[in-house]
């Protein structure tokens, strides 16, 4: 059977199955288990209403638990065993990682990524959001800067390969250097240390659109009076922007910042497709892929390290969400 046909059948089964599940389980709940008749119909309705949320939630909670909660525990346990999973090592995998130069490079690079990418994307996003706000052709400009969001990380890496290529006839960067008189082309992705930043540029290029969209909406939400009052007081455009507008949208800036931070910690595609982790550009997610399928113990240990790095942001997010709910 062709996979495509299989896909269509899966859609029908999946959607049909879901509809059937929700419909039948509701019917069973209302008609069979707690029917709204008999001696005490009111109590039965109340009981049915206590159960119903869980009926609605069950499929989602089940799959999320199985696919996202269980793996946290499963990965941790697996990380305590050796390559084949039959010898208990305790924290041996973690110790081995710490002793590995590759791991330390990856960890260090990851911190660089987390420092630079969210800051860069948020900064450019904020600038673009503010500058395009009053322009007649602002909507088109925004569309273009937003566009890389739709492009895969692999596609983006390829696009930037045409900028970084080690050849003045192909790589735009080298062509510009040649225009200013450089005689031999360089490979930006092989310059130690700085190559990391050339890779970060790709992610900033992708994420700026995201920051821009959200910050632009936040800027529009600023009450006009505050800006007008500042204008009357003689503030110049820069003062208005940095002293009046930015402080008012600070919470949104934080949301954008954390969202991009989390994304940055998880992306392995750019490094994988651009340098394959060579020339000292390894980051944790791409480092993990080196061990995937070869040494599951080591791979899961790296995954747990990534989780630990993400954890502070995760806790911050949950706190913010709870604040909103109250």
């Amino acid at each position, binding site marked *: 059977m062709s996979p495509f046909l*299989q896909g269509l059948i899966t859609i029908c089964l999946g959607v049909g199955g*879901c509809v059937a599940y929700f419909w039948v389980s509701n019917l069973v709940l209302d008609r069979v288990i707690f029917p709204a008749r008999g001696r005490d119909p009111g109590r039965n309705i109340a009981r049915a209403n206590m159960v119903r949320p869980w009926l*609605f939630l069950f499929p989602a909670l089940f799959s999320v638990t199985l696919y996202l909660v269980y793996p946290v525990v499963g990965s941790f346990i697996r990380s305590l065993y050796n390559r084949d999973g039959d010898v208990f090592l305790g924290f041996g995998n973690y110790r081995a990682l710490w002793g590995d130069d590759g791991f330390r490079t990856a960890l260090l690079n990851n911190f660089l990524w987390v420092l630079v990418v969210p800051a860069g994307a948020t900064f450019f996003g904020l600038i673009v959001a503010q500058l395009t706000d009053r322009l007649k052709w602002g909507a088109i400009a925004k569309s273009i800067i937003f566009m890389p969001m739709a492009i895969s990380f692999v596609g983006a890496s390829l696009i930037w390969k*045409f900028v970084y290529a080690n050849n003045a006839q192909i790589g735009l960067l080298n062509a510009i250097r040649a225009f200013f008189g450089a005689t031999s082309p360089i490979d930006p992705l092989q310059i130690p240390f700085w190559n990391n930043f050339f890779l970060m540029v790709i992610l900033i290029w992708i994420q700026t659109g995201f920051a821009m969209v959200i910050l632009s909406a936040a800027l529009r939400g600023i009450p006009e009076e505050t800006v007008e009052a500042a204008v009357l007081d003689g503030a110049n455009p820069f003062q208005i922007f940095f002293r009046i507008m930015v402080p008012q949208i600070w919470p949104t800036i934080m949301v954008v910042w954390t969202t991009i931070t989390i994304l940055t910690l998880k992306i392995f595609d750019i490094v994988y497709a651009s340098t394959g982790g060579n020339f000292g550009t390894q980051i944790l997610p791409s480092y993990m892929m080196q061990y995937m399928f070869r040494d599951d113990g080591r791979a899961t240990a790296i995954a747990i390290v990534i989780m630990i790095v993400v954890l502070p942001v995760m806790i911050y997010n949950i706190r913010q969400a709870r604040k909103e709910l109250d």
Partner: protein
Amino acid sequence: MEGIAGRRSALTWAVNITVVALVVIWLVPTLGLLVSSFRTPDQIARSGWWDAAFPVAQSYRGQAPLDGMKEEGGKYVLTGNLLKNGGGAISAFGVIGMKPAQFKAGTTGQMRGDQGTMKVMPNGDYTVTFNEKPDYAPRIYYQAKTPPKMTLQNYREVLFADGMQQAFFNTLTVTIPATVIPILVAAFAAYALAWMQFPGRGLLIAGIVGLLVVPLQLALVPLLRLHQDVGIGQSFLGIWLAHTAFGLPLAIYLLRNYMAGLPRDIIESCKVDGATDFQVFTKIVLPLSFPALASFAIFQFLWTWNDLLVAKVFLPANTGTKVMTVKIADDLLGSRGGDWGVLAAAAFVSIAVPLLVFFSAQRYLVRGLLAGSVK
């Protein structure tokens, strides 16, 4: 305000120029890919894509056939045209292969060893004059500008020779079920979290927010193991399940935020009229939530289409099941590393559909982003 009118217009100019610069920086890399994907390998090797609209200088080797040789005053003269089959103007020519551009077109050059002279005009007309009767047809090296040429050759090669066509359909096969199935599951859960009262609701919402950021890397090893134990293994079914579950936290979060913002009156008046939660959900909330459903669908579509990690782990690594991202990252970048035209065409095939979706549904995407992160 009158006094600073001049400064204001200067500021407007500065803003316009800055935005133009930013837009150019953001657009140029993609433009380069698009242009390169239509150029022949020769052209890519000889000039940058930014020169694609201009002729390319290229070296050729021609030969002046001996038939038609004329004797004029003790010298032997060959005439003819190098560009019989068309082509652009000749800029320079040479008598040895090492120096194909030794002499400017229109001038007369000396041949080696005092054999005679050679003259080539820009339109291709040549005159070779030998001092003694030649016993071989002389070669003429020349440099001509070939006019810019756009070709679909790269696309043909990528789609039919490199198996990108198969990868395209595989991506489609992965993406569509993985986009459709989570929507319904998430919608029910989101309704429960938005409009039903039950103990532990706040905790569950916080849990969903937490799960939004769990790194997928954690899920790979244990779930692959699980899939193998229950007999799914690496297969399309496995990747559908994985994508569905990985998309759920965002779906629930987006939809819950949207549903919680629906007007309370409508929902409560329905309940007063005797509608059950199931009816309220299917008849009122689901249709009203269409914008949020659309935003999530677009997100999930882009995410699964562009995904590399999940596809690498949950699909078997053979040609029959490779999706486009894996195909490009693992096959083409390795084997076709220097074949820029083919790489560009492959990349463009893979980003064309998301770009199409993006530009036709940008409104929903923006709305979804806003619902997802700004409150």
